Every structure is written in structure tokens, then in C-alpha cells.
């Protein structure tokens, strides 16, 4: 490293510390032995993880989060794939307009989406429930899934599908036997990205849930009763799952690129 690179390196280090220090502190004090997640650090101890795993409210929220995340991500990936496939292969005249409408939710804040859905669901008599939260998460994740799949449907993939049809496959057979298996890494990546976003999404989950809530909502309500290393443990757990999913996506994208 040359001397004139030193300020840049220091700046990078400062930025990294600024971003990751709070996370590091959160993780560190989840292993605290005492009652307060503040210095001095005493431990390490898994006491608060034990408490967390015995907390029925947290565990219920955890399983709610998994159910909402898996189902909404499956729905978003499936719908995103169908939209991308239809637009890329059928090339309708209104393709540009359709793409704009599909991507538009990305530009709307979660607060607006949540409020809009809340009003709409109330009018429809659907009310607030985990189903409503799941629908909200499909709304925010469908544009991403669409964009990810659409970017992978190039002319080469179209030729591979044509080859399948040329050899006697029906449209449905070509999609099921060739397109979906060929896009498998892409579809998994879209699913995991959608799940990661659903997993720690708070605003929509807060606005649209009632008695059954997701993990971020429970953590928020626990925060109101004061600081507690159990929350650090729960936060660390959420963070660890997100990191694991992020690494899975990276791996899949790399593999997809190698196979392209």
C-alpha cells in the first residue's frame, strides 16, 4: 500500500466501524451475564439465549415470521417468474408499461404501502392478520423477484427453450422441464432475497398484524418495557439468519454465473 492511500484506508476503516460497531455491541452484549446490556461486559454466557428459547411469545413470533417469510417469498418468486417469463417471451406491445407498473412498488415507501393495504383490507373486511402481512410482503418483494428473473431471461435462454419446443416439448413442458430447472439458482436467489427482506421487515408487519405478530414486531414491543440482554439475543439471532441467507444468495449467484 502506498502512503497516499493511507487516508483513504483510514476513512474506510472509520466508516466500517461506524456501521458495524452497533451491531458488534448488540451481539457482544447478548452474551452478557448480568441484567443490563451495558458495559462492563461480564460473561460470556448463554443465559439470555436460554431465556429467549423459553419465551413462548418470542418463539410464536419466530414461527410466524418463518411462515410469513416462506409463503410470501414463494408467492413473490412464483409471480415474479411468471411476469418476467410472459414479458420476456411473449413480448407484448405494452411491455414497457407493464414493466413500469411491476417495478413501481419499489419506489413507494413501506409506510405508504402498509397504510394503503390497511385501508384496503379494512374496506374489504379482511382486517389485520398474518395473511395481510404476507400479502404486504408479496407486494414489496414481487418487483425484486421480477427484476432478478427478468435479467436472467436472455436470448440464449430463449434459444434453449426453442430447442426444447423444436424437439417436441409443449409450452408447459418447456417451462417445467427446461426454463425452471435452468433458472434454478436465479429462482432460489430471488426467494432468499425476498425471505431476507420479509424476515426483518417491521413497518408493514406492525401496521397489518393484530394478535399474531412477527419477530420484529415482538422485539419492538419488548423494547418498550426497557433494555434487556434477551432482546440482544433475539436481535443477534435475526441478524445471524439474515447473514446466512445473504451468503446463500451470494453462493447461488456465483454458481449461476459460472453456469451461464
Amino acid at each position, binding site marked *: 500500500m502506498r502512503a497516499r492511500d493511507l487516508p483513504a484506508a483510514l476513512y474506510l476503516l472509520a466508516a466500517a466501524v461506524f456501521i458495524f460497531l452497533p451491531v458488534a455491541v448488540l451481539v457482544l452484549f447478548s452474551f452478557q451475564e448480568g441484567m443490563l446490556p451495558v458495559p462492563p461486559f461480564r460473561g460470556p454466557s448463554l443465559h439470555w439465549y436460554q431465556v429467549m428459547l423459553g419465551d413462548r411469545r418470542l418463539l410464536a413470533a419466530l414461527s410466524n415470521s418463518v411462515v410469513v417469510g416462506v409463503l410470501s417469498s414463494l408467492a413473490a418468486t412464483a409471480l415474479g417468474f411468471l411476469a418476467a417469463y410472459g414479458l420476456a417471451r411473449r413480448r407484448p406491445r405494452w411491455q414497457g408499461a407493464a414493466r413500469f407498473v411491476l417495478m413501481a412498488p419499489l419506489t413507494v415507501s413501506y409506510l405508504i404501502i402498509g397504510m394503503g393495504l390497511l385501508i384496503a383490507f379494512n374496506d374489504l373486511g379482511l382486517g389485520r392478520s398474518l395473511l395481510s402481512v404476507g400479502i404486504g410482503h408479496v407486494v414489496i418483494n414481487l418487483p425484486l423477484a421480477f427484476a432478478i428473473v427478468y435479467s436472467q431471461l436472455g436470448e440464449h435462454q430463449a434459444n434453449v427453450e*426453442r430447442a426444447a*419446443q423444436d424437439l417436441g416439448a409443449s409450452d408447459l413442458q418447456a417451462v417445467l422441464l427446461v426454463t425452471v430447472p435452468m433458472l434454478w439458482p436465479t429462482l432460489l436467489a430471488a426467494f432468499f432475497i425476498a425471505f431476507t427482506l420479509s424476515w426483518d421487515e417491521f413497518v408493514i408487519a406492525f401496521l397489518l398484524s393484530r394478535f399474531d405478530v412477527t419477530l420484529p414486531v415482538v422485539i419492538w414491543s419488548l423494547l418498550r418495557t426497557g433494555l434487556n440482554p434477551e432482546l440482544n439475543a433475539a436481535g443477534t439471532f435475526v441478524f445471524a439468519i439474515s447473514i446466512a441467507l445473504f451468503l446463500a444468495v451470494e453462493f447461488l449467484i456465483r454458481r449461476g454465473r459460472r453456469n451461464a
Partner: protein
Amino acid sequence: MPEPLVRLRGIAKRYDGIEAVAPLDLDIAAGEFVVLLGPSGSGKTTILSMLGGFTEPSAGAILIGGRDVTGLAPARRPTATVFQDYALFPHMSVRANVAFGLAMRKVAAPERLRRADEMLHLVGLEGLGDRGVHQLSGGQRQRVALARAIAVEPQLLLLDEPLGALDLALRRQMQEELVRIQKRLGTTFVHVTHDQEEAMTIADRIVLLNRGRIEDVGPPARVYLRPASLFAATFMGESNVIAGRVLAAGPGPAGEGAAAEGAARVETPFGPMTVSGRAVAGDTVTLCLRPEQLRLVRLGADDIRLGQVLVTALSFQGAHLRVHAVAPGADLLLRLPADADVAVGATIEVFARPADLVMLRR
């Protein structure tokens, strides 16, 4: 002539008012190896795509085996295509790729795997059936694409520049193998390429295309030696193009084959010469001569003497010498034997056989 396998009748394709293929007719006999040859944008790939059912013609009809297939989907045509980028199924083994078409035809698993291995043997890939597509080289992928297409026993095999991505040595080898496989199967092949050497190597018949129109159709030797148009003369290898004007025209000397169709006396920068072919006195014509048809010695009594020319450039090309020369009023390109006694700056005397001259109307 027996009923041709394929008949294109007035087939045409327009994209947004631009004519990619002008209405054209073409018959292809069963068992024939036809090459659609032309520069990019000549419409050759569009014609192939219309044969395969991937592009809908704007006008005209396509008959295969006497049946009108114009509106049929690719799956329902007796055709199979080898794509330019091979379009192999990346998630399947080599054997599963080759067996895919048979699986779609509901051939039982043991039978289709046996047939797939047979096809792999035919294309020289025996033993590689369990490999993944990504473990293969470009040439091997090309062979898998071929095996996959012929496994369904199409009446008509369509090849879209299949050798374009291969290096020269491999391309030559694959050309020979394509011909071997085609003769062995007896399947009708339609092959698209922009490489005129490849076309001459493999084709029974060349269809030369330019700007969506057929410029010339015929066996390679005929198209090369007696091109039907100036484009054919210059695209199919190099040609010396000599401008001329018809002084007099009339019937040719009786009983001399090609010359029997007529003969003309043509004024050129090299002096007047007699050329076979139909013409009208006063017409402006173009005379074409291949570089290797120019010689330094008079071989026959009726040889045309083009006169003294000055050698301006010379390059050794292994099997021959490529020579640029200037004469009053025209430049000439010669291909002389590698041991010819010429040097830059030297003056040489050049002759040509009258039968080699091709007269084309302007």
C-alpha cells in the same frame, strides 16, 4: 425429377416494412445437403428460421413432404434445428440432452437411452454420456447439439451457422464429419453459413443469398466457375472484374457445349475478345475471371492474350503466390504457382482461356 422434399413457394418476410426476405421459390430434394450462403443481413437465417417454424412468413407457403407446414409449430414439423449457440440444456447430462426429444415422443426410458448412446457414438462422443454439458469443450458441445437433433430422426435437419464458434482446424474437421454423417443418415440437411469455403466444402447445392434475394443456385463448382451474377462472382472467392461493351453478338460455334448458347465479341481494356453467352450489341457487360485462371503461358491456340502487365505486389501464401498487377486501364489479381518466376517491378505476359471468361449483364 421426383417430388422435392421441401418446397418454398413465394416465401417472404418483412419486419416493420423492411424486407428481410423477398418472395422466393426454392425446392430441396430428399437427401440433399443444401447450404444457404450469404453475408450477414442476406436473409439466410430468416429462411432457416421459417423452415424450422420459429419465424412466421409474411407471405407464401412451406411444404415438407407434400404437407403444408406454414402454420405449424416447430414441435409439429418433421424438422430439427442445431442452434448457433448450441442451446444445450445446461442442467442435464449429455445423454439426457440427446434423449430429450425421444422423451417428448414418449419413447420408453431403456430404448431412448440406448438410442442416445447410439447417436453419441455416431458423432464420436461415446462414453461421455454421463458428463455434464459444462464439462465439454466447444467442439464437443457442437457434437451434442447435432446428436440431440438427429436423435429424433427428422426428415429435415436445419443447421444455423453451427461451426461459427469453432477454430479453423476444428471447423474443417467438423465440416468433413457433417458430410459423413449426412451421407450415412441420408437426411436432408439445410446449413446456413457466411463462409464460402465451408459452403463449397460441404454442399451438394449452394443457395447464394444477398439482401433477401437468391443470387445464384447450383452445385459449388458451377456457382464458383460460372457465377450467375456479379455478386456471386465476387462473394464466392476473388474475381477479376473487367468492364466491357458488346460489339457484336450472335450464335456460338455449333456443338461446343456452353458456347452453344451464343457468343459475343466484347471490347475491353485488354482489347476485343470473344466470349460465350447471350448478349445484345451495344450492351455494357462485365467479364469475370478467377485469379487462378490467369496464366503466364499460352496453353491452347485459342487462348486470349491479355498483354503485358506490371507486377506491383507479391505475397507468398504457401501453396501459391498472390500477385497484384496493373495493365493499362485495369488492375489484375493473379494466383500463380508458388515456383513462378515473377518479381515486383517485372513485366509479365498474361493469358486466359476463353471458356473461363464469364460474361454478366450490368
